[in-house]
């Protein structure tokens, strides 16, 4: 369900645990042990990704607002990186690839939107998904194909990160689009 409105500007908040993420640790272990494509996987990180869309303030102001509410993240255990222009770097390393997964029709965060309106008086849209950051063995010839195979669940031996019957996914290499989740229409 994409709500139609003029896209004024879009920002992303990348929220990652400061300690090892148990979900990523388990997913990596299972993928490497049980999936043919998992052998290509060297590392796996899990980052919660918020996309904010509307009349947004400057990046520093966005950072301050996000830090203030537990609607977005917990600064005691997570770090947050904000991108408000395509030139801002995403927290993805060289050679890493991103797989964005979100629950179809369940990505909007109305509580966070109301909180934002309370604080700023401005109406924005907030969506949330998970960005899986995959480190692929450089010796693998078709890294994109390996990522795709790990991403989309087909059966017990193929795919893990996205069950396409309930979730959407988007793939990206080094350049992460902004917006990535929000579809302009």
């Amino acid at each position, binding site marked *: 369900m994409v709500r139609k409105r003029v896209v004024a500007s879009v920002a992303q908040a990348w929220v990652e645990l400061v300690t090892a993420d*148990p*979900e990523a640790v*388990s*997913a990596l272990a*299972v993928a490497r*042990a*049980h*999936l043919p494509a998992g052998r290509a996987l060297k590392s796996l990180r899990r980052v919660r990704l918020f996309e904010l869309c509307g009349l947004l303030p400057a990046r520093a102001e966005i950072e301050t607002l996000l830090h203030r509410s537990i609607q977005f993240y917990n600064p005691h255990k997570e770090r947050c990186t904000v991108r408000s222009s395509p030139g801002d770097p995403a927290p993805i390393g060289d050679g890493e690839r991103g797989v964005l997964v979100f*629950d*179809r*029709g*369940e990505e909007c965060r109305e509580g966070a939107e109301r909180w934002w309106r309370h604080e700023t008086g401005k109406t924005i849209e907030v969506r949330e998904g998970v960005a899986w950051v995959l480190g692929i063995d450089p010796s693998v010839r078709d890294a994109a194909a390996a990522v795709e195979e790990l991403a989309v*669940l*087909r*059966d*017990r031996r193929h*795919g*893990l*990160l996205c*069950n*396409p*019957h*309930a*979730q959407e996914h988007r793939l990206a290499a080094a350049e992460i689009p902004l917006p990535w989740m929000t579809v302009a229409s």
Partner: protein
Amino acid sequence: MSAPRVAVIQFPGVNCEVESARALARVDLRPEVFRWTRPASELRGFQAYLLPGGFSYQDRVRAGALAAKDPLMEVLAEEAARGKPVLGICNGAQVLVEAGLVPGEGGVEIALARNRMPDRSGYFARWVYTRAEPSPCIFTRGISEGTLLPMPVAHGEGRFTAREPGRMEALLRAGLVPLRYARADGRSADAFPENPNGAEVAAAAVCDARGTVLALMPHPERAQDLGALSPGMAGVWSDARVVALMRGERDAPGPGLALFAGLQRHLMEA
């Protein structure tokens, strides 16, 4: 002939193994809690399998996603293909769906998505009515069509859905939705909270074409004792409960036990 053995598969994080085993024992089956650290091949010695509720691998990645890849599931899939019954309850249902054991034979065709509820999100616990539908399912065999079975749900990801529009309707027509959420008067639940998660076609359960593998979101093992039925429910089970309590009967069978009895009958005939 000794009672058929049923493995209650204990992945790390599941938490309904004890009461599920009790329900099996009550219908004269021999349950055995099968820990995940045991060799998978030992599963072959059982006549049926139960994947109990809980949070296998803490629902990491997605509910059921990691357990579905476990080597135990390969053996289970082989045994299921031979016609051995498998019942997945709640988290067990999520594992079966993610492992592709329902509705098909290996490919993932549907999902148990996050609950969709007005004004709330996440985990939701409540007693609901389920209604028996025409189906080859062995667990509901003998329960006449339209019978209401009250049971509790308690989950955050229980919405049966598929990418392809009409897929769930097709499963319903094919008899692979043996239980649907209903209202107290027996009509299909068309809204929250009678349909507690927004499941398409109000599906509470999906089985495979043979009817021997069942992914069930409500908890029949929590409805095995009539006296423990929630007083917030109405209908014939509720009336029977009042009578049983007046007589001081604690062990009268509850609505959930019917599904285990279906399994037992099937195993005795086999």
